[in-house]
Each structure stands twice: as structure tokens, then as C-alpha cells.
């Protein structure tokens, strides 16, 4: 069954002999050559996505001032960062809002500004200790004068996201964009047949330690993402029908480009961050070839009513969503993507070129992603169970 190992593929990459194509180009290759020959011929399939991913943020280490401060509260350009870790460490989350500007500017904008090399105003307060006497500091930082700045995103690359609509008679504003009344539109967010986890639906090659393209540089899968839900119902092709796997990713923002990390604002919802991710998939055997040759017509998701009024749950393929119109309750409804397919293609193509030119080598996972894990809801209760 196995044709190649990751190490054999890497040898071909180092020798400049690897055959690499994107998850869209593979469709024509498999059509032309058939599964068996295509699996022998192709070594790596590259994927890509460029989507708003709220669960993103950056760890920073500012360096010590003289006299030193144990920063207990930190603001970056007026946006609060979490400082409840060591003295000059902080985490700036993408969705945090500016205390002065509200939704116009948030953590995602700070991250984009850092990547662009701009100066950021750092303001921090402390209660002062014997070893850290300073109680307040105001200065400017940028990515070149701080020690570390690495993105650590607890949840990226959601494997299959539901499309959103609105059954009520009022416009609603959501993280899935503006939803017009009376099923006025459907918004969906995916790069579909190019999407990383839809091309390795059962996590055979993507796992902990997998090297990835993130934000324009090379980073890694550091863990399962939050809400990782591998037990979701799946089609015969192994592709989940709803929300399933997720990835926690890590990468150095000093090496990133704002072309692949962009702050975004959703009207009356808040701030998010477009993150560009590309993951290479080694074609180990025919099964991986078949998995990467998945088409939009074979990937299904559900349309949900974001107003929460109707239990809609309509099954629809990404081919239908991408056609520009779907039918809801007998009415043709226009669809819009929220994820840039154009830039996802660019990422898959850059990754392909980097592998061809031996700049990017593949990795075997240090550990596989969990195959079992159920998502629980947050129970609301008045008192602790512990004293019962």
C-alpha cells in the first residue's frame, strides 16, 4: 500500500526532483493519469487558506528596562494585552478592542502593525516589588527591538465551517458578516477543495510538529486546536459534514508579511485576523492521493440560521455555495465567501514553489492529532458540585 515515506520525499525535494502540485492542480492530474499513476507521480500536494481566524494572537517579550518593572497590566496602542505571566511577557489577542477606539482598532491591528515594522506605544503598570521597583512605563516598541514576538494561535484552520443566513426580518451583524433579513444572503468561509484539513480529513499526515506556511513564514502545528472535534459525522470520503478538526499553530511574526496576516473588522461584531496558512501533504500512497483529490462537489456543510430563530441545518455542497446562489425554502439566495480563495491559491502556489526549490522540507508528525475527543457545552450552574 505504502509507496513513499516522508523521508524519501524529502530526499527528492533536496535533489530538486520532487513533483509538487496544488490541491486544485491535482484534480486534472488524477483525471488524466488515474489514481494509481497519479499517486506514483505526485510527491506533494499543497493546500492554502486565507480566512478570518479569531482565535489568534502573539506572545511578546519586551526586554527589561532600567530600573526594571514587573508589568501587571499592559496596553499596546491602547489595546489591553494579557500580562499575567512573567515580568515582561505578554499575549496580545486578535479580538481585543482598543479602550479608546473600540471596534475600529484592536489586537489584530496591533499584530498587523508589528508585522509591518511600525512603532507601537507600550504602556504598562505594576504594583512594584523589591526586585522590580518601577511602577509605570511608557515607551515605543517594534518587532526589531523586542526579544520575541511569535504568533501562537489556539485555533486555526477549522475543518469545515457552517454557512450562515438570517431568517428574521431584521439585518443581523455577525462574525459571519452582515446577514440581510428574510434569508437575504448566505455567507460561507472556506477555501473548499484547497483547504488544509479538507485534504487530509483523517489527519494521516498533519499532526503535532508538522511544518506549515503561516503568515508568509515557516511555522509549526503545535497542538490540536481548541474545540478539536474529530468525532464529527463524516461522509464516505472521510470528510466531516460539519465543524470538526482544528489546529493550534505557531510562527515567528518577525518573519511574517502583512500580505498574509491582515486585521479585519466585522460591523457591530468586532475585530478578527485574516491568517494565511498553507500545509503540504505528502502523497504516501493511493489513499492520500484520493483524499487530496477531493472536489468542492464532494465537500458538504450545513447552512445555519445565525439569528437562532429557525432550526434550518440545510445540507449543501461547496460547489453549490461557490456557484453564487443556493435555495432556501424555495427561494434563490445569493451566497458570498468570507475567505479569500484568490489568496489561498497564492499561498498554495508559493508553498509549491518553495518545496520545488528545496526551501521547504516536509515533516512527519511528532505525534498524531487525537482521533477521539468530544466537544462539551458550558453548563451554567449556581454552585460548585465539590461539596456535595
Amino acid at each position, binding site marked *: 500500500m505504502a509507496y513513499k515515506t516522508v523521508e524519501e520525499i524529502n530526499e527528492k525535494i533536496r535533489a530538486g526532483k520532487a513533483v509538487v502540485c496544488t490541491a486544485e492542480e491535482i484534480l486534472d492530474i488524477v483525471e488524466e493519469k488515474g489514481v494509481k499513476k497519479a499517486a506514483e507521480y505526485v510527491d506533494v500536494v499543497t493546500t492554502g487558506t486565507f480566512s478570518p481566524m479569531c482565535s489568534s494572537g502573539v506572545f511578546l517579550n519586551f526586554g527589561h528596562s532600567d530600573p526594571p518593572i514587573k508589568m501587571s497590566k499592559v496596553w499596546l496602542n491602547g489595546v489591553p494585552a494579557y500580562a499575567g505571566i512573567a515580568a515582561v511577557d505578554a499575549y496580545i489577542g486578535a479580538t481585543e478592542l482598543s479602550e479608546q477606539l473600540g471596534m475600529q482598532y484592536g489586537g489584530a491591528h496591533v499584530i498587523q502593525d508589528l508585522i509591518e515594522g511600525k512603532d507601537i506605544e507600550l504602556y504598562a503598570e505594576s504594583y512594584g516589588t523589591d526586585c522590580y521597583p518601577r511602577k509605570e512605563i511608557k515607551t515605543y516598541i517594534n518587532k526589531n527591538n523586542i526579544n520575541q514576538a511569535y504568533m501562537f494561535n489556539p485555533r486555526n484552520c477549522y475543518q469545515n465551517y457552517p454557512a450562515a443566513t438570517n431568517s428574521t426580518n431584521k439585518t443581523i451583524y455577525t462574525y459571519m458578516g452582515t446577514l440581510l433579513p428574510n434569508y437575504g444572503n448566505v455567507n460561507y468561509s472556506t477555501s473548499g477543495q484547497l483547504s488544509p484539513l479538507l485534504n487530509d480529513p483523517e489527519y494521516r499526515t498533519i499532526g503535532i510538529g508538522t511544518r506549515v506556511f503561516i503568515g508568509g513564514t515557516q511555522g509549526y502545528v503545535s497542538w490540536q486546536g481548541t474545540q478539536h472535534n474529530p468525532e464529527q459525522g463524516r461522509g464516505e470520503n472521510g470528510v466531516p459534514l460539519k465543524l470538526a478538526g482544528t489546529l493550534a499553530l505557531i510562527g515567528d511574526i518577525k518573519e511574517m508579511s502583512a500580505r498574509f496576516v491582515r486585521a479585519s473588522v466585522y460591523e457591530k461584531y468586532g475585530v478578527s485576523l485574516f491568517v494565511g496558512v498553507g500545509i503540504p501533504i505528502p502523497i504516501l500512497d493511493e489513499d492520500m492521493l484520493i483524499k487530496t483529490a477531493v472536489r468542492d462537489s464532494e465537500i458538504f456543510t450545513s447552512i445555519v440560521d445565525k439569528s437562532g430563530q429557525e432550526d434550518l441545518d440545510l445540507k449543501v455542497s461547496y460547489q453549490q455555495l461557490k456557484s453564487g446562489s443556493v435555495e432556501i425554502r424555495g427561494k434563490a439566495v445569493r451566497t*458570498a465567501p468570507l475567505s479569500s480563495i*484568490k489568496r489561498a491559491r497564492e499561498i498554495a502556489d508559493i508553498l509549491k514553489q518553495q518545496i520545488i526549490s528545496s526551501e521547504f522540507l516536509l515533516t512527519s508528525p511528532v505525534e498524531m492529532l487525537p482521533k477521539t475527543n468530544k466537544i462539551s457545552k458550558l453548563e451554567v450552574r449556581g454552585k460548585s458540585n465539590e461539596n456535595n
Partner: protein
Amino acid sequence: MKTIKVCVYFPPNTITKPLMYHLVKDYDLQVNILNADISLNKNGKLVADVTGTEWNIEAGLKFIEEIGLEYKLFTKTIIWQEDECVHCGACTAICPSEAISMDKLSWQLCFVKEKCLVCGLCVKACPLNVMCLSE
């Protein structure tokens, strides 16, 4: 010759002289209706591009007033800052005149300015602030 974009408001239960007929026949105006939602029992409106000589356009607008209708001229336009756009598509399905759409092959945003009603929905829907209303 010049072209203006105008929105004409129709209050409920109004039946006027045949507006289009007179604009075309009496004032020699080319009227391109971009959007119309008029019914007898509710407030209606019509958005159109109107092309003609300056003199005729002014006379035509005066005629609209004379038959008891109000109108508003669109002086602003939507500016798409294409260089900053990531072509996500969030502004497309909410565009009432389909002036903004996605090219299904390249997945690039297409903006046909002539079809734009300057409703401003795309300005709010754009997560990157690249759709702007001109001053």
C-alpha cells in the same frame, strides 16, 4: 451631455403622470433604471442613471418636482481601494444591484461602478475598510 444618478421617492397611494414617458419624450433624457421598488400601498423608490444635456436634465428634475415627487441626487460614489483588497467577497451578496460580484474563475472581486446604487452596504460589510464613500 452628462449623466447623473438620481433616486425618486414615491409616497404610498400616489399615482402620478407617467414619469418615464415624459422624461424621455419631453426632455430627451436617456433613463437607465438601476433599481425600482414601487407598490401602491407603501413607500417606493426608483434609482436611475439619467443622461442628457445639462439644460434637459435640469428641466427634467424640475418636472419631477412639479408632479409632486421628491428626489435625491447621488453626489457621492463608492471608491474601491483595489490594492488593499484581499478579495474575500464579504461585500458581494449584500450588494442589491449586483454591482459587486466575484469572478468565478479567478475569484477576484469585480466592481461595475455604473450599476452601483451608492447604498453604502458594502462600506459596512467590508472587513478591511477598502470600500469607501467619496467625500
